[in-house]
């Protein structure tokens, strides 16, 4: 057991972790750490290595090389001990369809050795919190996709994990289920639960994640807070303008110093630049010189989606 004080705050510490399938390298020497109490987002396009990483960290598959430590336990040398601290909600709700909601929940709790009284109390509390109490005795096969995913979250939480792994937890769910799962996860995080989440939903990642890592082709392309990542992609900053009645000619807009590109979507003009403040000033001057009038003027940072596309090679990196 690794028991260094410096590593206590790092709930997950990944060093040079790799996984190959034959000649294909799914995860290629990745390094990162997740601190206690964080919601850590793991973003990447399909096939980037997100699920493979989660599967390695949760003991489903073994790494080809490298190491990962969860709550002080090496996932290879102390696999069982490392798994005692975690719970997993996979992308596809894999409940036992022929068992009732309650049986599914209790089975998972028993597997993790949760004492009888606690698993019953916690089970009932979680079913209530996730709106499943009225389905307690229903077979899991009778549940909708959203309700199955809620049951998966219940089954994970009833084991009282310190780290919760969520693999695309809201993918394809109805709005209510997705919102409820996000709400519960955020509340649990407020109470100290560390969350490792993969998602395609950039708004979700931007809203709930303390930090995000972007993985592309098996390698980590960037790690930081969503705000810092947005600031870093400077060429995707832009000035957004709407003109009253008439807009300046496109060539005049493109000629403003430091403007790297102009897009026009109906009446909204976007002037891309690394210096949005000075471009906004120049735009005001240009508008006045031409005797025109501005209706709206905003400087914008790129969205997390822009950042994602930038780092995954589809945004002009």
């Amino acid at each position, binding site marked *: 057991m690794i028991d260094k004080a410096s590593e206590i705050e790092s709930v997950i510490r990944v060093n040079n972790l790799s996984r190959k399938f034959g000649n294909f390298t799914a995860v290629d020497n990745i390094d990162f750490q997740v601190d206690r109490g964080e919601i850590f987002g793991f973003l990447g396009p399909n096939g980037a290595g997100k699920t493979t990483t989660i599967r390695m960290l949760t003991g489903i598959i073994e790494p080809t090389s490298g190491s990962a430590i969860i709550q002080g336990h090496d996932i290879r040398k102390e696999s*069982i001990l490392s*798994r005692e601290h975690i719970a*997993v909600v*996979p992308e596809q709700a*894999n409940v036992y369809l*022929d068992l009732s909601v309650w049986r599914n929940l209790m089975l998972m709790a028993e*597997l993790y050795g949760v004492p009888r009284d606690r698993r019953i109390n916690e089970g009932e509390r979680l079913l209530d919190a996730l709106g499943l109490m009225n389905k307690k005795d229903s077979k899991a096969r009778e549940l909708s996709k959203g309700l199955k995913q809620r049951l998966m979250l219940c089954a994970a939480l009833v084991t009282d994990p310190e780290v919760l792994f969520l693999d695309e937890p809201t993918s394809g769910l109805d709005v209510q289920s997705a919102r409820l799962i996000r709400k519960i996860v955020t509340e649990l995080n407020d109470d100290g639960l560390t969350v490792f989440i993969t998602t395609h939903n950039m708004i979700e990642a931007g809203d709930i994640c303390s930090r995000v890592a972007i993985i592309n082709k098996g390698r980590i392309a960037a790690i930081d807070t969503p705000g810092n990542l947005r600031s870093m992609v400077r060429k995707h900053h832009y000035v957004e303008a709407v003109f009253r009645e008439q807009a300046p000619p496109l060539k005049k807009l493109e000629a403003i110093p430091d403007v790297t590109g102009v897009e026009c979507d109906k009446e909204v003009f976007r002037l891309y630049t690394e210096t949005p403040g000075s471009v906004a000033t120049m735009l005001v001057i240009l508008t006045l010189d031409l005797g025109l009038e501005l209706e709206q003027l905003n400087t914008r940072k790129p969205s997390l989606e822009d950042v994602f596309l930038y780092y995954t090679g589809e945004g002009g990196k």
Partner: protein
Amino acid sequence: MSTHSDRIIWRRQLHGSLVILKKNVLLYYLKPPVLIFGVLFPVFFFLAFKMGRHISTGAVVPGMVAMALWFTASAIGPLVTPWERNAKTYERLISSPISLCSILAGDVLSGFAFGCAISVIPVILGLLLTNAEIANVPLLIGVILAGALSFSSLGVLLSAPPAASPSNIMLLSNLVRLPLLFVSGIFVPISQMPAWAGWIAPLSPLSYASALIRTSYGSVPYFPVWLCFLMLFIFTAVLFAASCRFHRMYRAKGL
């Protein structure tokens, strides 16, 4: 000498195996493949062997008990892992803090319990409806327990290869179980089988269980009793160790 934490870990793993047993009882004992290959198969084989032949019904009871034990104890293993892989629930199990060997031990216990329970039926029917008499009850109980453990381990081993569908593994399991049935002294005692079959018989765990069951019903033992038990325990150990190895090898395949 084991430390306190080692004992806690062992207790947790044993508890995990029992939870797996409970899950399997709830989910798989009444699944159609188990009922068809575990319960109906021995009945049909019995009828095929008995009908139209001048053999007293009592004489076929030991074979029937051995066949029931063979098919039922080895029926659960080939179903559980392929079914769970297919339903994606396998990932939940192997990401829990229960070792793969403890999960497999739970599967072995499931087959063991199923085999023991169902094998009692032909024993009771034989006593009630035929002239078969049990000469040595403790021996019969012992062989049912030892045989069920061994056959169940074989079933778990057969479930190791990843398959697109659980039925593929059931097919594979029958490819192994059926030939062994004919060389293990079920229908004809090993002493009366052709020489070549007598050479193959010791390679099958069913031969030792079958010989012991016949002995418990008063026949002259073909193998010494101690050797039969020793071989059944060796088969159990080897088959379980091989199960752990091959399941670990194929764990991530097809997930």
